């Protein structure tokens, strides 16, 4: 825990001065191309396929059956620790089947396929109109019922973050609007078009967390955003909400880096921002909180950027979950000739999808179509020359070249010591590597191996415990038996009363036999 004096100081400090984080990269922005048109709702697609798995962890269980009609906003997937899933339209469930889902694993998964009826008939919404007097717990329940999850990409359930936050002493809520990956502009568009909703969501979250301050962090090049948000934050009840511009260095939008930029402090290794009295939420999540609480609307749509050199007319949409990428790309004029790869998210940390049949989900902030020139993956991989560029740009101050050698040679203890688990997979090292070594891929593999080993260690520890318990049990039994024998022997030696005991036992046996004969009139059977 932080000493209290330091925390108090922090309250006044967060965002007051801009600090730096180690490394990072200056990347070309490419954001303007998709910010030209206002954000539009695409026309309803013919079919929507809503995946039951939208994040790391377990999939939700479908609550509807094929043939059933659903209303817009009706829960269709339930999942206990994770976020609920709601129908994005009113219509008929056509099937519940395995389809390509939008997930880093690239696997298929259970999807609820809905054919919209075009009526857009909402389920009964239950807004909390007077949120200011509502209890924090009821607000958290509302977030849970509305299926809110972090829209920055990790899709961590908002109600769990809020509950975790309530348990720590939170003084500052940080809204992350520093969209540091190139190309993505959905948060920027949201902040331009819905600043009031974001500020309202921030106030609700602040109340839930019991925090005092809100810092909305945006990139220093977002001029239009700054004025819009500042205006929105001028309301009578908007004290202690500040808009802070942070320098555009990738990955300053990473939670840990953003906190370092705002406070100069580092989130402890393996810890959470709440240990510093802070909670980070994406601006889009804040807007979704406002929708969920004030209007009772569940999370069924999101701002999404469709962009890249591979798209004819890049732009942003407010798309319903389950809408296929191809539907959106079609509305952007389709692909250019030289499109080579389709990525969900940004070029640095996004994951590729094998088909544009993939549906929009809570985590999809951007559909990025890249050309051969963008990725140029024909370059030969060379051995590491230990130039140290990777260490220079690493925001986690790791030594990627050492980690690479350790992971490659499966030196897991060393890799752990050198902080493999602290890698945020931002991709900076990968981009600057003159030998073109796919470092992040190696680190992901290494982390997977470490997790596997941890699981195995846990399992073998369990097996060991079980074995030891069994041994102990057997020994105990043996001892007990030995003691019984001893007792018997002692009793045999003890002549007095022995005859009585024999007689008594003969008597008992006879009684038993008689009883048996009485209940079995056809005579004794073998099974006694």
């Amino acid at each position, binding site marked *: 825990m932080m000493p209290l004096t330091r925390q108090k100081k922090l309250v006044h400090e967060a965002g007051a001065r801009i600090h730096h984080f180690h490394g990072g990269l200056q990347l070309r922005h490419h954001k303007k191309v998709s910010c030209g048109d206002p954000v539009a709702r695409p026309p309803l697609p013919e079919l929507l396929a809503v995946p039951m798995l939208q994040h790391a962890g377990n999939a939700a269980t479908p609550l509807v059956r094929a043939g059933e009609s659903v209303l817009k906003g009706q829960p269709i997937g339930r999942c206990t620790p994770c976020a609920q899933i709601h129908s994005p339209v009113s219509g008929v469930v056509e099937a519940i089947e395995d389809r390509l889902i939008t997930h880093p694993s*690239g696997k298929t998964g259970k999807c609820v396929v809905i054919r919209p009826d075009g009526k857009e008939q909402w389920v009964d919404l239950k807004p909390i109109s007077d949120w200011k007097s509502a209890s924090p717990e009821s607000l958290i329940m509302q977030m849970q019922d509305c299926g809110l999850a972090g829209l920055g990409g990790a899709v961590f359930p908002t109600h769990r973050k809020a509950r975790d936050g309530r348990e720590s002493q939170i003084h500052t809520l940080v809204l992350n609007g520093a969209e540091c990956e190139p190309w993505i502009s959905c948060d920027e568009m949201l902040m331009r078009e819905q600043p009031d909703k974001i500020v309202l969501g921030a106030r609700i979250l602040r109340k839930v967390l019991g925090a005092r301050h809100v810092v909305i962090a945006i990139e220093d090049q977002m001029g239009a955003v700054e004025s819009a948000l500042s205006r929105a934050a001028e309301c009578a009840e908007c004290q202690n909400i500040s808009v802070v511009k942070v320098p555009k260095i990738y990955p300053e939008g990473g939670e*840990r880096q953003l906190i370092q930029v705002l406070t100069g402090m*580092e*989130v*402890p*290794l*393996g810890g959470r921002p709440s240990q510093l009295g802070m909670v980070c939420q994406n601006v889009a999540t804040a807007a979704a909180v406002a929708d969920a609480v004030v209007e009772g609307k569940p999370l069924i749509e999101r701002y999404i950027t469709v962009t890249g050199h591979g798209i004819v007319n890049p732009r942003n949409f407010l798309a319903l979950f389950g809408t*296929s990428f*191809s539907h959106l790309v079609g509305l952007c004029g389709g692909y250019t000739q030289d*499109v*080579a*790869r*389709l*990525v969900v998210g940004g*070029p*640095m*940390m*996004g994951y*590729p*999808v*094998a*088909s*544009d*049949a993939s549906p929009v989900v809570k985590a999809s902030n951007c559909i990025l179509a*890249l050309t051969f*020139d*963008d*990725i*140029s*993956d024909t*370059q*030969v991989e*060379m051995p590491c*020359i*230990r*130039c*140290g*560029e990777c*260490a*220079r740009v690493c*925001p*986690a*101050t*790791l*030594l990627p*070249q*050492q980690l690479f050698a350790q992971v490659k040679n499966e030196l897991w203890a060393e890799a752990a010591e*050198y902080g493999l688990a*602290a890698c945020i*997979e931002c*991709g900076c090292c*990968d*981009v*600057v*590597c*003159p*030998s*073109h070594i*796919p470092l*992040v891929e190696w680190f992901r593999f290494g982390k997977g191996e470490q997790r596997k080993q941890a699981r195995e260690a846990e399992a073998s520890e369990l097996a060991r415990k079980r074995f030891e318990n069994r041994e102990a049990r057997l020994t105990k039994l043996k001892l007990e038996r030995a003691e019984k024998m001893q007792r018997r022997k002692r009793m045999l030696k003890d002549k007095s009363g022995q005859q009585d005991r024999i007689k008594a036992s003969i008597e008992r046996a006879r009684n038993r036999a008689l009883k048996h004969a009485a209940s079995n009139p056809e005579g004794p059977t073998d099974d006694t």
Partner: protein
Amino acid sequence: MTRSFPTGAAPHVAPQTNVAGVMLQVLLALVPGVLAYAWFFGPGVLIQIMLATVFALFFEALMLRWRKRKLKPFINDYSAIVTAVLFALCIPPLAPWWISCVAMLFAIVFAKHLYGGLGQNVFNPAMVGYVVVLISFPQAMTAWIPPLFLSEVELGLSTVLVTIFSGQVAIAGGWDTITQATPLDLLKTGIESGRLLPELSESPVFGQLGGKGWEWIASGYALGGIYLLYKRVIGWQVPTAVIASVIVLSLPAWLIDPATNPDPLQQVFSGAIVLAAFFIATDPVSGCVSNRGRLVFGIGVGLITLVIRRWGGYPDGVAFAVLLMNMTAPMIDRYTRPRMYGE
């Protein structure tokens, strides 16, 4: 209608540099120093560079073939050429041709490929090659000619070629008429024989900072080094540590007894300190990886060089210093791991 796409791992960004690019920058940065060197010492310098390059590429190709590696990406990475050029800049301009051959054999075959090739060598290949021939062929390796403006004999291109390829000087009087002690040789033998610096420095071989001509060559290397710093091919840690440690460590001795100890700037601009600071000790493969480690490495190079210059058997000790520090690099790395975020 849907469309499928081939996938690939993040980041989906074209790489910014490549190994060949890094090595080319190093070669480019050596140009001013090489030009100054050739200006003062004649065409022999360029011929040595060419010879070493040819031998280095020959052994590189041979080893790649033998180790069943792809020839093209590795021959084209310029790393063998960097090794060759750095070596050629350390040897006397009129050294016989087979010196390069032996040195490159040890540099490329033994120091580089037998350790696993590019990126795997524990020792700096150029320095391994140099030290092998320095110890094995002391006569050929100490036959330095003076800068051209101090030389009494005219050394034309044909004389130079004949000398290098036959090992015989095609001038009456042979080697003795064209060779001369280097400034560092003079200092060492002079001081050891009890003469004092003020007297020694009246010799025409000394200039303002180091040896006449030599100081300009060192300045050329420094210029190239600053270019590498600007281009971020090398970090500031190693060059700063080497030069600063030489200055700081030689300063007290000079202050106490300027008659027997050269001044700090003379130490820096003599011999191979500047070349080593920017081009040799900065070799990433055989050096340290962390920034603090690189500082320690550089200080070690400066310190050991001074110790060898003062007490060792050789007038200059940069090559030995670099090799000794190469040995300690893994250990330095162990103790200088940077603090992780949040640690």
